[in-house]
């Protein structure tokens, strides 16, 4: 472990008090930042100072702070979830920055994700896509014994890889077209890789893609920025799989 010395950071943060407000960047100074702090802990400290100065703290979504709930996320110096690959904003630590760095923080930018306040956006479009077909229709109590249906380990592992999506929306934020193809592709693939998913396979992909389009997400033009931004390492192969299913 490196000896803890502290660093100072200049933050340029997007402030927007409500969905209708125009919004602007404001500058804050974070001093005495320990490299062991997580990015969100650094924001907590900055917010403490803002509150004491009588202002409104920076709003940001967060909950688990361990990279699994998908709540957190912001564009850090142009990169969704910041400079490190395969970590969420809450898992990013200040040791990834240097003394004197300037950091620009913005919310996800996509018309399907309207800003609620500051760094908080509304991602309920994702829930509506799932509601449109992101499930296997099995009523409680009607399932056969779990071992009735063996699944090859290869398929099960691939389905798990797809199912790891945390629904954070970084893929949308990173995509030049604000497409949700990685999110939808991952869910479609999880089920189409499993025998349980077969009966609804054809209709599921159609309904989900239709919903994605009607939410105002853009088309995939194979920029692959989503894969680079995904904190869970979900690959664009799942987008190809979705396209084959259509």
């Amino acid at each position: 472990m490196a000896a803890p010395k502290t660093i100072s950071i200049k933050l340029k943060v997007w402030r927007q008090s409500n969905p209708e407000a125009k919004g602007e960047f404001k500058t804050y100074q974070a001093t005495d930042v320990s490299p062991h702090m997580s990015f969100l802990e650094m924001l907590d400290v900055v917010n403490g100072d803002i509150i004491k100065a009588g202002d409104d703290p920076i709003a940001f979504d967060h909950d688990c702070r361990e990279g699994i709930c998908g709540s957190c996320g912001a564009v850090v110096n142009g990169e969704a979830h910041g400079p490190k690959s395969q970590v969420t904003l809450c898992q990013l630590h200040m040791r990834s920055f240097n003394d004197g760095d300037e950091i620009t923080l913005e919310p996800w930018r996509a018309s399907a994700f309207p800003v609620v306040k500051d760094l908080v956006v509304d991602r309920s479009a994702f829930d509506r896509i799932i509601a449109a077909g992101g499930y296997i229709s099995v009523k409680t109590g009607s399932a056969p014994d779990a071992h009735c249906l063996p699944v090859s380990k290869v398929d099960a592992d691939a389905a798990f890889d797809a199912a790891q999506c945390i629904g954070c929306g970084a893929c949308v934020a990173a995509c030049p077209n604000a497409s949700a193809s990685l999110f939808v592709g991952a869910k479609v693939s999880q089920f189409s890789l499993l025998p349980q998913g077969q009966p609804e396979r054809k209709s599921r992909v159609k309904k989900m893609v239709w919903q994605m389009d009607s939410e105002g997400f853009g088309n995939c033009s194979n920029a692959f920025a989503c894969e680079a931004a995904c904190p869970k390492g979900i690959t664009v192969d799942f987008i190809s799989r979705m396209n084959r299913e259509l």
Partner: protein
Amino acid sequence: MKLHSNEPDGKLSEKWEKHKFQMKLVNPANKRKVKLIVVGTGLAGASASASLSELGYDVHTFCIHESPRRAHSIAAQGGINAAKNYRNDGDSVYRLFYDTIKGGDFRARESNVHRLAENSVKIIDQCVAQGVPFAREYGGLLDNRSFGGAQVSRTFYAKGQTGQQLLLGAYSAMMKEVNAGGVKLYHSCEMLDLVLVDGKARGIIVRNLRTGELETHAADAVIVATGGYGNVFYLSTNAKQSNVTAAWRCHKRGAFMANPCYTQIHPTCIPVKGDYQSKLTLMSESLRNDGRVWVPKKKDDTRKPSEIPDEERDYYLERKYPSFGNLVPRDIAARNAKEQCDDGKGVSESGLAVYLDFRDAIKRDGRKAVEARYGNLFDMYYQIIDSNPYEEPMVIYPAVHYTMGGLWVDYNLMSNVPGLHVLGEANFSDHGANRLGASALMQGLSDGYFVIPSTIGNYISSTDLPKVSETDKAFEDAKKECQDYIDKLLGIKGSKTVDEFHRELGLVMWDLCGMARDKAGLEEAIKRIRDIRDQFWKDVHVSGEQNNLNQELEKAGRVADYMEFAEQFAIDALHREESCGGHFRTEHQTEEGEAKRDDENFSYVAAWEFKGVGNAPELHKEELVFEEVQPSQRSYK
């Protein structure tokens, strides 16, 4: 008041079947007219919402998160138990029942626990059918791992992301019902109060967290599944928004709070680093399958772990508990870690850590095998600590993790307030004084998929429920009380932040109500909690306004509730003059330093009735009757 479990009589293994037959049903055509409120979309709330809607009820589901999929259940790592006996290693419904009762140190209700064990097998079937990608073996069948407190392999898992996969299963089942029109979803809504009409739970008050507006919602019954209260300690492994608010406000409306002092301190978490620390990260118990816990034999040993030869290491769990070794239950593993550190054997800069070492597992099975089992946990550890567990042992220390206590419920999962049902971690029901690993997910899903769908019908069909409206006086009054409360919080404009108060409270709880408790300390805790609470109401600064997204206001309400709840927590711990499971009173221990129960005087559930803030709550007892299992001194030697 003597509390009754309302379980049917008869043979333990036949109770649930018998009860299901005896309960009244609701005519399918009438179910659409029955409106149910579900608060919470964790495993318990989401599974309940989906199942109740499938039955035909008109379900209205609320959560504080911006998406139901973000509930704290998503973070569960290690796995879910089920008595499938796929391993042929001697497991059975009875053994799971027995392990859970014993693991809970004989402080849980037998009938509930047996039902839980029965339901466990159906949960796995349900989840597999939903497409939950559990780990599988090469033959295509499900894999299992072992967890603490059991000698059989009955834990089903999806890498270190079991909670995520199970929650996404329950969430998608619920979203299917949203699409079908059976569930109406209200995200970003916080329940602030329970509304009673004629003594029955008939609705809730919520604050829309986006607009700040207070809304009233009426229903025929209310189901609360809002999770646990571990964050009363400020630092815990719980997600930041986990709270006691919904449960506490129900309590203030008359629902009894049971065994609030039963808290689980998890032995394997990443140690605290600095005062800026905002939460603690769990390293799943499954790691103890392959990781060996040790400290240097020498006190204050500053050598690197790799420089300490085997004969100078104390694998203290293996030494003290040869038959369970590193797989002893959590309370025992946690207490032993504390003991080693108190004894000066702790490692890392703070001395408040022990090693969890994978060297031997990697030597035995190869790095690849270890990576397949724990890869994502190792990555998470690396992100936080910046040290590679494939090469250096992990440093771990106990942290608050789970709360066995919660709102009191009977066998039907109904509280003492008619119509108010409580599921998942929010109730007290199945884990006694200590929960075994991989059993919370099982309980949440058992409650939601299989128990409440049966028991709610019985309540509805056997209760007179005249129509109520959201504009009735009871609703207007409750709404006004919530409004006054918010105005009061926003009006203080003091000098300290909400977080500062929360931290202060957390420290008192950790120091005086944590892994080891005693009379003097608990009395001191009560005094200090009251002081902090007084200070809070004089000097907290809640910024911003009501009619907007205001995360400080949200936190303030939750911390205010923790300050009231904390006092009751300490009172419960003080009154329970025995040690059991996670409740360790230093005055009550065996010669070997293990928890010493007092069955003669404390074999009961302590259910507290609210009597006003700062007033002593009134104790009601539910005697625990053990017909099947003989309580004994737990031994994991």
